[in-house]
């Protein structure tokens, strides 16, 4: 459909996540071989980022309180679905609450949002094309990740990752830092506002298996040693299982009140 010539409408639809699986596959193929259309995706992405930095959602919501313009649910959703979903969530969470109680390990949320407004997302740059990251898709060595975050009032953010072998990577503005480095502080002052980009990108290496990225939102800076021992300790308790580690993370190091967001990325064996 899009392999021989450019179709900006299809690229725009792809950028918006519209179209069926076949259309998306076709556009992805075209993008791999078309610098012009990759440029269009990049410019759309930049426009989106610039716009949301200048006009974040909370600005719109403050002027137009959501109560007055709630999105209408599709009529295809049964009215009882929310009640069933709530009940299912309670049943799923009950063992976790009973097991760990209030003082046990923190259940880190793997995903996008928490009630406190914390966000950890990323954009994926592969072969010149930039797309919003999707943790459910397989990643490759060489993929560049640009993380964006909303710190929700926390003063510092710290990014680290641990791979399937238990190797911890710590990140600073200058890129990856040697594990165990105690100074200077590893954390960056959190920029105010929503969807702030980290001042560096992370390139995935060719280590096999998944990689768990962790962002700590706290009130003070952390050292590399603190973060490394926190992650390796959790890795050991989870018996080297990164999926299990997500739900077994203890409270993060540093001053009380720190929060954690995680992203577990699967890497394909290229």
């Amino acid at each position, binding site marked *: 459909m899009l392999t021989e010539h450019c179709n900006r409408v299809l690229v725009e639809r792809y950028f918006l996540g*519209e179209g069926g699986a076949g259309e998306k596959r076709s556009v992805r193929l075209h993008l791999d071989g078309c610098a012009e259309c990759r440029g269009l995706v990049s410019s759309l992405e930049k426009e989106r980022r610039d716009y949301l930095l200048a006009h974040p959602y909370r600005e719109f919501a403050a002027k137009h309180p959501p109560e007055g*313009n709630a*999105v209408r649910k599709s009529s295809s959703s049964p009215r009882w679905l929310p009640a069933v979903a709530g009940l299912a969530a309670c049943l799923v969470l009950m063992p976790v609450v009973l097991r760990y109680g209030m003082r046990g390990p923190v259940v880190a949320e793997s995903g996008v949002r928490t009630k406190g407004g914390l966000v950890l997302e990323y954009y994926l740059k592969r072969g010149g094309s930039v797309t919003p990251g999707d943790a459910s898709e397989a990643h490759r060595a060489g993929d560049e990740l640009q993380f964006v975050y909303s710190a929700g009032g926390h003063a510092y953010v710290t990014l680290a990752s641990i791979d399937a072998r238990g190797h911890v990577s710590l990140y600073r503005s200058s890129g990856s830092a040697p594990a165990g480095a105690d100074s200077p502080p590893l954390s960056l002052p959190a920029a105010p506002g929503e969807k702030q980009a980290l001042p560096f990108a992370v390139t995935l290496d060719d280590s096999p298996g998944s990689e768990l990225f962790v962002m700590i939102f706290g009130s003070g800076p952390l050292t590399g040693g603190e973060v490394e021992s926190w992650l390796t300790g959790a890795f050991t308790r989870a018996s080297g299982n990164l999926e299990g580690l997500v739900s077994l993370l203890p409270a993060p190091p540093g001053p009380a009140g720190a929060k954690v967001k995680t992203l577990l990325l699967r890497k394909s064996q290229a």
Partner: protein
Amino acid sequence: MAESDSTTQRELYEKYAPMIYRRCLRFLRSKEEAQDATSDVFLKLLEHWESVQNRESALFWIHRTTTNHCISLWRRKKFQGPDNEDGWEDSPLHADDSEEKRIILRDILGKLMMPWNKSVRDIVMYTYWDGYTQDEISTMTGMAPSTIRKYLTKFRRATEQWKIEKLEGQHAY
């Protein structure tokens, strides 16, 4: 409002508002006006989301609604503003637009498109304003390329006649 509604609204905003703004800014050429217009169009999107999401593409709805909203704003400004009664200086026409494009866009903006149906207006806007190809318009609207060609030919013939009449002084702005 339920948390899920709030989340959906936020997701829609982050997905579509930047694209709406881009189109508004191109039309209105003022960041403040474009931002106000973006809010207006986004509120319409929320209001109509149930039907919009059932369409094959929200992009088409957004393009059409944003264009119509901006034309409406611009018309109001032109016909109500004391300084704009006989000038096109602050219209969305760009200095580097070709003469043909300027004439056709004036045609649209000046209500001379009224006799045409919405589909023709959409096709003309996508062709002359956005610079989309007929294939792209077909993707956007779902109309067959042959129908698009037919409408454009019809429109061009009528415009030629209008240009001749304008040169003869039968139309005045």
